[in-house]
């Protein structure tokens, strides 16, 4: 058999069902790869070998029962039974650590499973561990993790994107076929683009956030990473749907078609025939790299050749998205992060009165970016400034959402756009100026402001680094949107770049390769940034 880590989840599922491979074998292979490469990549904050192998054995028992006992026939149909998955380290797994990339949660052990953890257990997925992330999901590079940055498997001196950079790097480096991330302003789609994998942010409310560390509650949404569209759709299907413990999760039905995207490339390519795509002119921003723009234009030409039409459209309030987002998200974050008081859980510092202990715990436990956002948000909500900042931003948000609504009203099925204006950037290059880092999400954050689903799929390379194509659809159109993404995947199935693996996997395997922290220090020492 070929290296099992190179398989897609749907291929693993077929081999598991036929008994040609066991979940234990698959899990062992992925654990070994993740453990070997993690020094160089730092994609994982926790690799829980014992728990994963126990889950794999349980999955093998379920698979065996399903083969011989009609009463367990349902398990024959579960696409994730026995398949490995990684979780961003803000998803609660009972008894396990959940740091959200922060010192303030170091040592905290989750007392319960998140809703999506429960769902993944039901369907029998094997949780390998927890992936690295920007602290409290605030960042676009994973450099804001308190536990060191993650390296991009395509270039180890570059970022994987963020905030879910550990998940995207782990999927790209074949540590796991599937991973969960969260996306508040682009934190799934942008790292998916920078690592050359598929990543989707579903509609706001599609997946219950019970048991997820909160960042900005009117924007946060959970979604899948995978190496192909069908796998991403299957993972979303497994976790989506209403949960009474998250009042913002929607009763909107989860369509079965999500788990039944066409396997055949001809059928999949046929989905594109007659589809009306809009190309938002404002997403071709100043500072966009020519190589990125070229790949997007080629993708557009491909969609047209497959029988779709692509018309230029306008989202006139796009330029206001960044400022709006960087008021709304920090304001909500400042409220959500008030819970870290050093009393009930997490880091406790200080031995004085209550106020002194708060100041010591929060001053010592939060990193620089989190402090910046708490300060911004607290200021934007403070007496005398609420109307000028927060209320103003909420009004502009209405205009941004209205831009998208106006386009759907014209009959456009989906928008096609770049996910990120640039390919993966070097460690340190955007740390000195927070605004330059914030600009990393210019093409993704309006989609969060409008609550819409968006998916990033690989569309080629620029200077040897992955470029992501973003498809954006109306609310609740995930199945349709992933179908279109599957169509694009099908029409590029023969492209040379589709067969390329990340260029620095061999270097990542080498135990002498520097860690990401060492790389950052070396770049700083030579004054690169």
């Amino acid at each position, binding site marked *: 058999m070929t290296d099992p880590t190179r398989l897609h989840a749907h291929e693993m599922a077929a081999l598991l069902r036929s008994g040609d491979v066991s979940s234990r074998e698959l899990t062992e292979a992925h654990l070994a790869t993740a453990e070997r490469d993690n020094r160089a990549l730092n994609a994982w904050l926790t690799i829980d070998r014992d728990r994963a192998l126990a889950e794999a054995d349980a999955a093998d028992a379920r698979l065996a029962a399903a083969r011989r006992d009609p009463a367990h026939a349902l398990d024959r149909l579960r696409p994730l039974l026995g398949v490995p998955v990684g979780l961003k380290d803000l998803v609660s797994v009972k008894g396990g650590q959940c740091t959200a990339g922060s010192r303030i949660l170091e040592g905290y052990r989750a007392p319960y499973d998140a809703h999506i953890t429960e769902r993944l257990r039901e369907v029998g997925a094997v949780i390998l561990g927890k992936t690295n992330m920007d602290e409290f999901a605030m960042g676009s590079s994973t450099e804001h993790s308190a536990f060191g940055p993650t390296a991009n498997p395509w270039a180890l001196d570059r970022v994987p994107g963020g905030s879910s950079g550990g998940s995207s790097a782990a999927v790209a480096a074949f540590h796991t076929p599937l991973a969960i991330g969260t996306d508040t302003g682009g934190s799934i789609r942008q790292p998916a683009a920078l690592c050359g994998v598929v990543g989707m942010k579903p509609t706001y409310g599609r997946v219950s956030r019970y048991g997820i560390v909160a960042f900005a509650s009117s924007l946060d949404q959970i979604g899948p990473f995978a190496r192909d569209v069908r796998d991403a759709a299957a993972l979303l299907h497994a976790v989506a749907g209403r949960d009474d413990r998250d009042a913002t999760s929607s009763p909107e039905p989860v369509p079965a078609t999500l788990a039944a995207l066409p396997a055949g490339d001809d059928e999949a390519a046929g989905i594109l025939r007659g589809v009306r795509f809009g190309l938002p002119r404002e997403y071709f921003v100043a500072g966009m790299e020519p190589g990125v723009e070229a790949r997007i234009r080629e993708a557009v030409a491909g969609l047209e050749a497959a029988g779709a039409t692509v018309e230029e459209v306008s989202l006139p309030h796009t330029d206001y998205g960044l400022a709006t987002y960087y008021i709304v998200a920090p304001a909500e974050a400042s409220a959500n992060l008030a819970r870290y008081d050093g009393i009930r859980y997490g880091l406790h510092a200080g031995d004085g009165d209550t106020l002194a202990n708060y100041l010591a715990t929060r001053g010592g436990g939060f990193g620089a970016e989190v402090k910046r956002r708490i300060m911004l948000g607290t*200021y934007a909500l403070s007496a005398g400034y609420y109307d000028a900042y927060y209320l103003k931003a909420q009004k502009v948000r209405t205009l941004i959402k209205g831009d998208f609504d106006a386009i759907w009203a014209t009959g456009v099925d989906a928008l096609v756009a770049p996910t990120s204006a640039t390919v993966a950037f070097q460690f340190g290059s955007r740390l000195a100026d927070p605004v330059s880092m914030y600009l990393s999400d210019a093409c993704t954050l309006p989609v969060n402001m409008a609550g819409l689903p968006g998916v990033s799929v690989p569309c080629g390379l620029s200077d040897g680094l992955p470029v992501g194509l973003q498809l954006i659809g109306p609310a609740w159109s995930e199945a349709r949107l992933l179908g279109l993404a599957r169509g694009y995947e099908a029409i590029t199935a023969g492209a040379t770049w589709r067969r390329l693996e990340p260029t620095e996997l061999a270097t990542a395997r080498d135990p002498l390769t520097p860690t990401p922290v060492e790389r950052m220090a070396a770049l700083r020492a030579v004054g690169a940034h």
Partner: protein
Amino acid sequence: MSTLSRGDVEHVAHLARLGLTEDELARLEGELNHILDQYAILAELPTDDIPPTAQTIELENILRDDVAQPSLPLEAVLANAAEQDGRFIVVPAIIEER
């Protein structure tokens, strides 16, 4: 829109219960003002007649029957606390004895 003074930065840090060093306060004064400059773009948009959007899905007043639901065991909830005493979390006194 406005500019933050050093005193404003200290005030906001106090509101947020963040203990910051002199270096952090100085750096934040520059960074926050730089970020606030980016917000100025919003002032040019007329929004008097625009209603605010707090969230994007049309769900409101999600209610359930007032029935007790199972909750986590006390030991599980207390396990992460810095200091415990039986069924309680220990915190510094906030009311002086007289």
